[in-house]
């Protein structure tokens, strides 16, 4: 199975439901052939709606167009779009066993029993569910169901694979394992995939690009690195990963904070909103830094210490420190960051 699939172009696709609820603002986005794009956002921001528009389960508001490659599929019914979809609830057919579920799309396409069996066997191996072929659905664990749903969706060699929070129903440990498994599977298939999640770790692992959504609109599109290191605004900074967002006056190339000053590259004087990731900070002796604060709490989380420091900025700062560092609450320490790790967020000053 080499790279197949098509590019997806959404043009001004908005969605207003019959009850007047605006689930999606008119949105334009291009997804390249073979790319995995992750839609990331909190509950109710319109991720599923976006996915359903691509699948054909929802029609966009007037003026919206959906194109697969050069083909306009806006008016093509679901059953002829040739998309594979993994539903959040998996939606496996309870009256069919595992093999019948996986083979259903092939059967509907009139593919003969022998060829079908061979293709099902291929997918069973690919998704690692050997031995479960004749099981009924209610005899499967959550992780096994997820694999069957995925196998069923890719069995038809879809042009586009759509996944709606496929791991959300699973417990944390299994989710982490399946996440990397899914990642290598999507790479192996090379298929154009759209993946919806509210879990930023999932988005980071799986996405070639991440689309961060907010209230039915796109907040930022970029690679996981872009999104993490160069968030376009405060919303993205705070939604993806942990972030210290501080508002302060900028003067002489530094932010003026309650606990001292913090040098910033490319600063323009005036009011500014800046972001620093917890892992960018270094805790140093108070005398070795221009910014100082008092250690409030130290939490040992195994691979590192999560330290909160009060008095340095208007809000307590979150700092990740090496787990061998000797710090204790009440201690006054200095804080430094490498140049460039202070990210100014545009147009966000209150």
């Amino acid at each position, binding site marked *: 199975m080499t790279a197949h699939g098509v590019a997806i172009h959404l043009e001004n696709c908005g969605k207003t439901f019959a009850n007047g609820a605006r689930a999606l603002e008119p949105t334009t986005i291009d997804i390249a052939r073979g790319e995995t794009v992750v839609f990331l956002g909190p509950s109710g921001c319109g991720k599923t709606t976006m996915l359903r528009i691509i699948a054909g389960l929802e029609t966009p508001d007037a003026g919206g167009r959906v194109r697969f490659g050069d083909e306009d599929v806006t008016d093509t019914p*679901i059953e*002829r779009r040739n998309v594979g979809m993994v539903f959040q609830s998996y*939606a496996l*057919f309870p*009256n069919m066993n595992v093999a019948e579920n996986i083979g*259903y*799309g092939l059967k509907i396409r009139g593919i003969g029993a022998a060829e079908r069996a061979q293709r099902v066997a291929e997918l069973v191996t690919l998704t690692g569910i050997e031995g479960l072929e004749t099981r009924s659905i209610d005899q499967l664990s959550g992780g096994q169901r997820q694999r069957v749903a995925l196998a069923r969706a890719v069995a038809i060699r879809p042009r586009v694979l759509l996944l709606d929070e496929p791991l959300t129903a699973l417990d944390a440990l299994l989710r982490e394992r399946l996440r990397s498994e899914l990642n290598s599977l999507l790479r192996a298939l090379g298929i154009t995939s759209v993946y919806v999640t509210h879990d930023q770790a999932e988005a980071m692992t799986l996405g070639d690009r991440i689309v961060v959504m907010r209230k039915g609109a796109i907040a930022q599109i970029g690679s996981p690195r872009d999104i993490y290191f160069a968030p376009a605004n405060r919303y993205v900074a705070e939604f993806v990963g942990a972030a210290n967002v501080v508002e302060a006056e900028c003067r002489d190339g530094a932010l003026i904070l309650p606990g001292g000053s913090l040098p910033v590259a490319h600063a323009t004087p005036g009011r500014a909103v800046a972001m620093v990731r917890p892992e960018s900070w270094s805790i140093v002796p108070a005398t070795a830094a221009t910014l100082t604060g008092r250690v409030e709490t130290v939490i040992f989380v195994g691979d590192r210490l999560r330290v909160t420091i009060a008095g340095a900025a208007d809000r307590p700062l979150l700092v990740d420190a090496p787990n061998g560092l000797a710090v204790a609450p009440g201690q006054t320490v200095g804080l430094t960051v490498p140049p460039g790790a202070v990210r100014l967020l545009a147009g966000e000053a209150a």
Partner: protein
Amino acid sequence: MVVAFFLLPMARLIVTGASGPSGIAAYAAILVEPRYRATLINTVVLATATTAAALVVSTIAALFLQRHRFPGRSLLIALLTFPLALPGVVIGFLIILLAGRQGLIGDVTAFAFGEKWVFAYSMQGLFLGYLYFSIPRVILTVMAAVEKLDPALEEAARTLGAQPWAVHRDVILPALMPAFIASGAIAFATAMGAFGTAFTLATNVNVLPMLIYTEFTLSANIAMAAALSVGLGLVTWAALALARSAGGTVAAAG
């Protein structure tokens, strides 16, 4: 106590059935004697046809009601279940009003084709009456099952390439099967034992409950009436047992 309450009359019934002049042979007579056998077959055919028709009508109605929201929808649902409130005699009476000699259908057909259609007292009339009281029993169960269907199942089938009719064949109807079995068994049992409607309508045809009644009151053939009762009970019980083993939750449908 409870067991005795249920079992004693039954035991008595079985004994009575064998206590007539022909003894145990009364049971055999149900199958051998043409009049009794014809009645048994009539009743089973009628109950089966009623059940099948009630299932078809209810499924179509339930799927329609699930998919369409319109003003008056809940009123319509309430009306559909209204016959539950009516005793069989009243339903028989309604059928006479509809298809009797002075009935609505008679008047309309007399006007349209110059021929008066009267079928209230035939097998068709009974069928109509039985259907009338069976549909509410079936529709409530089927509607509840339709309500519980995960809409994603239908959507999944369609993304896999299934046309709407294939979705019904492969996904929706199989998912409703337990509800069909459960409500079908209840409809069948009710139709087998319906008396009120039969009493009002069954002048030209014979069904088991009527036969039992006439054997008992007119012919004073108590033993035969008892034997027929046991026969009726057995057929109905077998249908319910079959449904139970097929996985339907019959009790919940009652």
